């Protein structure tokens, strides 16, 4: 997003004509020479495993060996079997809900930091960034402690005399997964929204105020549309990884909160049917990509209409 603009800043001095082109070309050559180790390593380290994953998804498991004749059998199972299909829908639904909750909750927070935090802005940003960098596993584990049958909420309510028996509906269901994920990914949603709000030219808001727009109208006509790139970015940043999340459904999901990553893990770890696991992984990435592209297009259209 913003990163894309950063590389292209014009160099300090301009050298016109052929000489200029030559200088610029050598500039690009130098840049690529410096860039090449990182680029090559990253590209190779991404491409090779992904290609192998794709290959595996077209093979099949015969006992302990892998049959390398190309077949669509794994995809037929991954997409066709009702239990897997239900898991795809559930994973998409859970992370869709998580995305909605995190983005809606994060927006006012980001707005506050961008427009109202004043001199304390840096402190606020640090406080909101700390969870982003600290252990995901521990943040999820905290919710298991809170929602458990003998956990913080149940024992707290019983201690206060509000309930007699522990509430069993807190842990091990899709709702627990949604709450936990919404908490664990909150920091990812705030920052992109904050950046897009920060970029808004304040004089636009002043102009609208001078022309008689009230606060609400200013927000819906200027602030919200201009911050949509951040909202879309935040939504993608939360939706894509949460669909494939493994830790949260495993720790707090129980049998009704199982997600697609759980069955992928089972194929690789316990059952040992790597081709089927690969097909499930490919199918889930495709599903996420399709939903994401549709969402981004729809969001852009909606924003364009407002403008």
């Amino acid at each position: 997003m913003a990163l894309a603009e950063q590389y292209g800043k014009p160099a300090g001095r301009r050298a016109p004509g052929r000489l200029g082109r030559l200088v610029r070309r050598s500039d690009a050559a130098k840049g690529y020479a410096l860039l090449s180790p990182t680029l090559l390593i990253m590209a190779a380290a991404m491409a090779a495993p992904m290609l192998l994953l794709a290959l595996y998804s077209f093979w099949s498991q015969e006992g302990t060996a892998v049959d390398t004749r190309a077949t669509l059998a794994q995809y037929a199972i991954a997409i066709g079997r009702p239990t897997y299909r239900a898991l795809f829908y559930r994973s998409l639904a859970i992370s869709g809900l998580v995305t909605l909750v995190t983005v809606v909750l994060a927006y006012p927070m980001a707005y506050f930091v961008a427009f109202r935090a004043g001199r304390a802005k840096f402190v606020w940003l640090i406080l909101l960034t700390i969870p982003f960098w600290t252990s995901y596993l521990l943040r999820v584990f905290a919710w298991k402690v809170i929602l458990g049958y003998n956990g913080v909420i149940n024992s707290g309510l019983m201690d206060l005399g509000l309930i007699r028996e522990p509430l069993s509906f807190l842990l091990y269901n899709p709702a627990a997964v949604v709450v936990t994920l919404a908490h664990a990914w909150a920091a990812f949603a705030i920052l992109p929204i904050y950046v897009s709000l920060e970029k808004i030219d304040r004089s636009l808001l002043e102009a609208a105020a001078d022309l008689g727009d009230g606060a609400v109208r200013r927000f819906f006509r200027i602030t919200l549309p201009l911050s949509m790139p951040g909202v879309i970015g935040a939504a993608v940043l939360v939706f894509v990884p949460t669909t494939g999340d493994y830790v949260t459904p495993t720790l707090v999901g129980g049998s009704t909160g199982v997600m697609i990553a759980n069955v992928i893990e089972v194929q690789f770890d316990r059952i040992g049917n790597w081709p089927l696991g690969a097909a499930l992984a490919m199918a889930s990435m495709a599903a996420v990509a399709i939903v994401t592209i549709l969402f981004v297009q729809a969001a852009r259209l909606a924003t364009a209409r407002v403008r």
Partner: protein
Amino acid sequence: MGARRKRQGGYGLLAYALLYLAFLYVPVMFLPLFSFNDSAFIAFPLTGFTTRWYSEMLADSAMHHALLNSLKVGATVSLVSTFLGLLAARALTRYRVPGGGLVLGVTSLPLLIPEIVLGISLLILLNAAAIPLSLYSVVAGHVLVCVPFAITVLMSRFEGFDKSLEEAARDLGDGPLKAFVRVTLPLALPGIVASLLLTFLTSFDEFLIAFFLAGTDATLPLYIWGQLRFPFKLPSVLALGAMILVASALLVVLAEWVRSLGVRERSPTMVGA
């Protein structure tokens, strides 16, 4: 009247922001709270203060081993990924690189692929190449995830500074290497330190990729995961978790503080922004 209404709106937002902060921090605070509670059950009412979970955890030799592994992996990952990030960030900010946006897109791809897919696809690759799983494979997986972070942190630092300083050093007779060591490096150093700290932390806390690639040698998150199966171990896991959380938070604050040294406009590292 208008000003007053605005102020009221401001207080409403402030209240919301404080609530949001509570939502972020309070759930995690239960880990340290119960780690000092003198009961094997993680439940209210609190029964008394104890540090025995800490001494129990600190005496566990499997924990020591896992901690040492995580420190080794984290240190290697932070050095390698910061070095790779340094090359890329320097190239993208110092030279006009055609297609630079695409390059950034490729290097940040690992952030948009679910970790489980990264884990299993790297597992397949190592298996196909007949490379046995070890802490080295964990390092490789972590470097992939950490390079985008390193690039983001370093680019934000490089962008701030003035190319003319380096050119001045050259004009005054410094060779390219000397100019780099005397001018560029000191300016970039805070970014480098921040990148080292943050990539170390990312690797130190990473669970899922290590879960697939570690083989028999456990890192600290894998050790924690293993302990979660035993209810009687939970209090000492809480103690360990509390220590990790506090240490991580301090590292983040340190990294962001170092990174903002000498920069007029301060804003913390934002990935994906």
